[in-house]
C-alpha cells in the first residue's frame, strides 16, 4: 500500500492585497483505510484535496516539510511526473457531475479515454473495459449509458460515471470531494454503499472530503477536522461521538435532529483562540 505523508503543509494564494493563507501547517498520513476531512466552507478542505492532486492554480504557493506519495516527492516532482500520478495512482471524484463531466463527450467516451491514456488500450478494448466498469458501478443498462451525454443522466448516474472515471486508472488512493452533496438522501445511501464495496474490493485508500460530520463519522475510520486551514482535531470515527475540541462539539450540535424538537437550533460563536492554539 502506498503511503501519503503530509507534514506541515502550507498553502497560500497570492492576491492583489497580499497572500491569503488557505492551509496553515496541516499534517496528514494515509496508509490504507478511509480518512475523512471535515470542515465548513473556507476551512481549506478542498484546497487540501487539490494540493494532493497537484491541481492548485498558479497563484498558489505550496510549502511543506514533507509531502510525499509513495516514492514521489510531490513538492519537487516535475509537471510530467505529477501528470503520470494523476488519475493513474491518485483518483479524484468531484462534487457535482453536472459541472465536472465534459458536456460534449458521451459518458462512455470519457471512461474509455482513461483506459486509452492510462493503460494504452485501443478503441475496442477500451470500450469493453469501460462497459465492464459501468456495470461495476451498478448502472443497469451500460450499453445505453455508454452512449448518453452527461445532461441525459440523472444526478446519481452522473456520480456513478464519475466514480467509473476515477476507477479507470485503478488508483491506489481515491480522493472524493463532497461526492454526495448533489444527491438526494435516498440516492446518497445507495451511492455510499457502492463506494464502500468498491474500496473494499479493490483495496484502495480513501480520503473523503465533506462538510457533513454525520456522514464522515459513519463512513470513515479516521476523521480530521479542519477549521481556518488548521487541524482542530484528529480522531477515530468512533471517538467523534464524544469529540474533544470545542469546535467539533459545536459543529455536531447545530444540526437539526429527528429525535427531539428544540425550540431553537444551537448556534455558536467562533473563538479566535482556536486558530492560535496550534504552533
Amino acid at each position, binding site marked *: 500500500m502506498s503511503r501519503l505523508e503530509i507534514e506541515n503543509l502550507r498553502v497560500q494564494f497570492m492576491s492583489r492585497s497580499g497572500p491569503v493563507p488557505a492551509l496553515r501547517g496541516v499534517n496528514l498520513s494515509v496508509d490504507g483505510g478511509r480518512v475523512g476531512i471535515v470542515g465548513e466552507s473556507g476551512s481549506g478542505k478542498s484546497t487540501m484535496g487539490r494540493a494532493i492532486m497537484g491541481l492548485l492554480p498558479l497563484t498558489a504557493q505550496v510549502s511543506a516539510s514533507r509531502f510525499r506519495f509513495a516514492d514521489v516527492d510531490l513538492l519537487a516532482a516535475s509537471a510530467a511526473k505529477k501528470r503520470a500520478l494523476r488519475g493513474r495512482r491518485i483518483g479524484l471524484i468531484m462534487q457535482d457531475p453536472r459541472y465536472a463531466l465534459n458536456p460534449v463527450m458521451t459518458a462512455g467516451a470519457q471512461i474509455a479515454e482513461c483506459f486509452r491514456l492510462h493503460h494504452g488500450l485501443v478503441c475496442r478494448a477500451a470500450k469493453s473495459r469501460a462497459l465492464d466498469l459501468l456495470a461495476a458501478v451498478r448502472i443497469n443498462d451500460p450499453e445505453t449509458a455508454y452512449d448518453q451525454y452527461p445532461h441525459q443522466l440523472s*444526478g446519481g448516474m452522473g456520480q456513478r460515471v464519475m466514480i467509473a472515471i476515477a476507477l479507470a486508472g485503478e488508483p491506489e488512493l481515491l480522493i472524493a470531494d463532497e461526492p454526495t452533496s448533489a444527491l438526494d*438522501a435516498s440516492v446518497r445511501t445507495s451511492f455510499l454503499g457502492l463506494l464502500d464495496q468498491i474500496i473494499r474490493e479493490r483495496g484502495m485508500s480513501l480520503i473523503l472530503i465533506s462538510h457533513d460530520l454525520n456522514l464522515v463519522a459513519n463512513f470513515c475510520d479516521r476523521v480530521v477536522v479542519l477549521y481556518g486551514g488548521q487541524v482542530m482535531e484528529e480522531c477515530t470515527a468512533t471517538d467523534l461521538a464524544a469529540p474533544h475540541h470545542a469546535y467539533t462539539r459545536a459543529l455536531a450540535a447545530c444540526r437539526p*435532529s429527528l429525535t427531539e*424538537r428544540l425550540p*431553537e437550533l444551537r448556534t455558536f460563536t467562533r473563538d479566535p483562540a482556536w486558530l492560535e492554539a496550534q504552533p
Partner: protein
Amino acid sequence: MIEIESVSVDFHTKLRTVRALKDVSLSVPQGTVFGLVGESGSGKTTLLRAMMGLTAVSSGGVKIAGEAVRQNPPLAFRRRVQMVMQDCYASLNPAHTVDQIIGEPLAIHRFDNPEKRILQALKDVGLGPEHRFRFPHQLSGGQRQRVAIARCLAIEPQVMLLDEPTSALDVSIQAEIVNLVMRLQQQKGLTLFIISHDLPLVTHMCDRLAIMRKGMVREVITSQDLIERKVEDDYTKVLLSASL
C-alpha cells in the same frame, strides 16, 4: 391561508407530455409553518412555482388569502406573497448594492420612506448599516441569504415561500438562518411554506409537512408524529431511515 385544490401541472415537449404534479391538495392555516419534503424531480419546486403564478396549472387551483392565483398575478398579490430562492449566490443582482436590492421592491410597491424601511429590514435580519452599500460579492453566503430574506420582508408580506433556503450554506450558518426565520415568523405572524430535501430541517421548522414523490403527495404528517415515528406511508419510512 393557502388552499391548494387538486392541482395538476403538465409540461409538454415535442414528443410527450410530462405530468409533474398529480392532483395535489394541501391546506395551510394562517400563521403556521408548512414543509414540503421530497427528492429531486418530485415536483416540489413546480408546486411552489404554481403557487406563485409562475407556472400554469392544467387543472385545479391555488387560493392564497381567499384569492385565486392566476398567471401574471397583480401587484397586490406579490405584495402579500414573497419568495426566497435556493441559491443566494445567484438570486441577488451582482451589479446592485444591498441598498438597491432591498430598495427595488419598495419602489415597485410604492412604499413611503424607503430609507427607514431599508434600515429596519437590515436590522430585522441582523445586519447593520455598514452592510447597506456593499455588493453581494462582498458578503458571505449567510449574509447574502439574510439580504434575500430582508428583501422579502421589506414589503411586509403575509406569506413567505422558501425554496431550499439553506441548502447552499454550512450547518452552523444554517442554524443561524433557521433561527432568524423562525423568530421573524413568530414576531410578524407570517405563514411560511418551506421546501427542502432535508427531513430533519423541515421537521425542526414546521408544524406540519407533506412528503412528495413523483408529483403526488404521499403523506401529510405533523412534525410531532414524525418525531414519535407515527408514520404510515412506506416511502416516508424509507426517507426517515435514510435521513438518520
